[in-house]
């Protein structure tokens, strides 16, 4: 299961002494350093408010760090702008904790967005959307507008949008918060599948059922600091 990815030949995410301060004085992250290899699956856990979402926001360049350096495939992302930043973001799929779905659009349209921005052919988009919906038990919701979906369904649509464009890195924030055990299993299968085909995956969660038996690395955050990194080979 856990194969040679633990001996990183290439780093996907490199964070060195990263801190994030929200004004006026909320320390969301303090001196966090991690290095995630290409193709790795990486868990971030911690109590509510520990800084998991903040960490993902920094990695996906939604927020700039207050201090420290963040590199994605060797690019210091907070110096990227315009076209280069857009291209990088096309390669990062993010499933947000607050979903960020367009409430007045259908499930299919929401998923298609991430592919449209890189100008995929409409026929390819249609096929991929159908495919993903089938894998997430949402086939019958193809034309439902997303504000009419249950939270668990919305969560899966968000995930589908994140992985639709086959990104090289997938960041998932609390992917199973509203799901039953069976659906959780399905979601994890899908993520594992993406991981097998080469995507780097970072999962922030406090659902211990999805990381309890994993052999992947797990980082625990406490009040914005790295408390421990466990698992993996030789870590």
């Amino acid at each position, binding site marked *: 299961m856990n194969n040679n990815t633990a001996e990183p030949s290439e780093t996907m995410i490199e964070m060195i002494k990263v801190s994030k301060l929200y004004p006026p004085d909320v320390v969301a992250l303090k001196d966090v350093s991690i290095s995630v290899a290409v193709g790795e699956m990486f868990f971030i856990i911690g109590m509510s408010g520990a800084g998991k979402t903040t960490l993902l926001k920094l990695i*996906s360049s*939604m927020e700039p760090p207050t201090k420290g350096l963040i590199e994605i495939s060797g690019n210091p992302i907070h110096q990227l702008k*315009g*076209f280069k930043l*857009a*291209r*990088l*973001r*096309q*390669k*990062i799929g*993010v499933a947000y904790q607050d979903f*960020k779905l*367009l409430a007045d659009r259908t499930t299919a349209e929401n998923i298609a*967005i*991430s592919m*449209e*921005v*890189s*100008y*995929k*052919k*409409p026929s390819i988009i249609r096929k991929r959307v159908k495919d993903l919906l089938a894998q997430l038990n949402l086939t019958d919701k193809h034309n439902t507008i997303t504000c009419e979906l249950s939270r668990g369904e919305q969560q899966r649509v968000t995930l589908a*949008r994140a992985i639709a*464009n086959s990104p090289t890195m997938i960041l998932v924030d609390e992917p199973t918060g509203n799901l039953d055990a069976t659906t959780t299993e399905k979601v994890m299968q899908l993520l594992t599948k993406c991981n097998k085909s080469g995507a780097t995956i970072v999962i922030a969660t406090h659902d211990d059922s999805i990381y309890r038996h994993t052999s992947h690395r797990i980082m625990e955050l406490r009040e914005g600091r790295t408390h421990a990194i466990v698992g993996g080979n030789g870590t």
Partner: protein
Amino acid sequence: MSFWVTVIRQVGRNLRQTWGSQLMTLLTVSLSVLIFAFFYLIYTNMLSLGDKLGDDLTLIVYLEEEPGPELQQQLIKKITTFDEVEDIRFISSAMAYERFAGQLGQNEDVLDDMPKDFLPPSIEVIPLKNLRSLNQVKLFSAYLAKLPGTLKVQYGQEWVERFYYFTKLLSIVVLLSGTLLILTTIFMVAYTIRLTILGRQDELELLKLVGATNNYIRIPFLLEGLLQGILGSTIGITALYTLFHWIKLRFSGPGLLNLFEFSFFSPIVSMSIIGVSILLCTLGSYSTMHKFLRI
């Protein structure tokens, strides 16, 4: 290919979402193009009318007495120092009498009792045939009135002056409606696009997050402005054209309007008006984008 499919789909979405204000903008753009083009059309027709009327314009300077050849030369010199003229003709009392008699025709006999020199001698000054001399005709006549031995100066005073002020007024109206056109197109287009942008903050935010390039986000809005410009100006010009022909048909036959040959814009002018409107609308959308779509 996929780029344009996506972009056009996005434009369609924008239009559907704010079709009410889009329609209003389209109407405003069409209307301001119509208003501007309407006055401009009248103006250009007036100019060519002025040219034609100017053909018959003659200033007649009545003199106290017959000028000798030497004085004639002096007068010619004085007249031409004011402005170049097309022609200067000296009419003696006798010539004036004959001409008058000719005009009377059968009734010539009423002149039997009159002395042959009862009409004063005169100079006919024919100004150059252009609008400038038409506009200057008042000054010119004042100048001629001051020449030595002048009794009075006559020309189609009334109409020349009225015509002059009318064209002047028209040119102001054209300028005003032109300004209106510029303002409405730029601001209305900018305003509706701002509405669209504000109504879709969430989506634009998300698009940036999933890696939409500037072009991906901006081009649909630019196209929207372009579309407004194309449709609005075409509708405006077409409406004016229809109106023009309707009026021509309605008032054809004997009548004042028939005295002059009214003509529509040449294709080049029509295209220029359309082109400028398109440019203005695009400018409107571009300016909003610059303010509200910082990426």
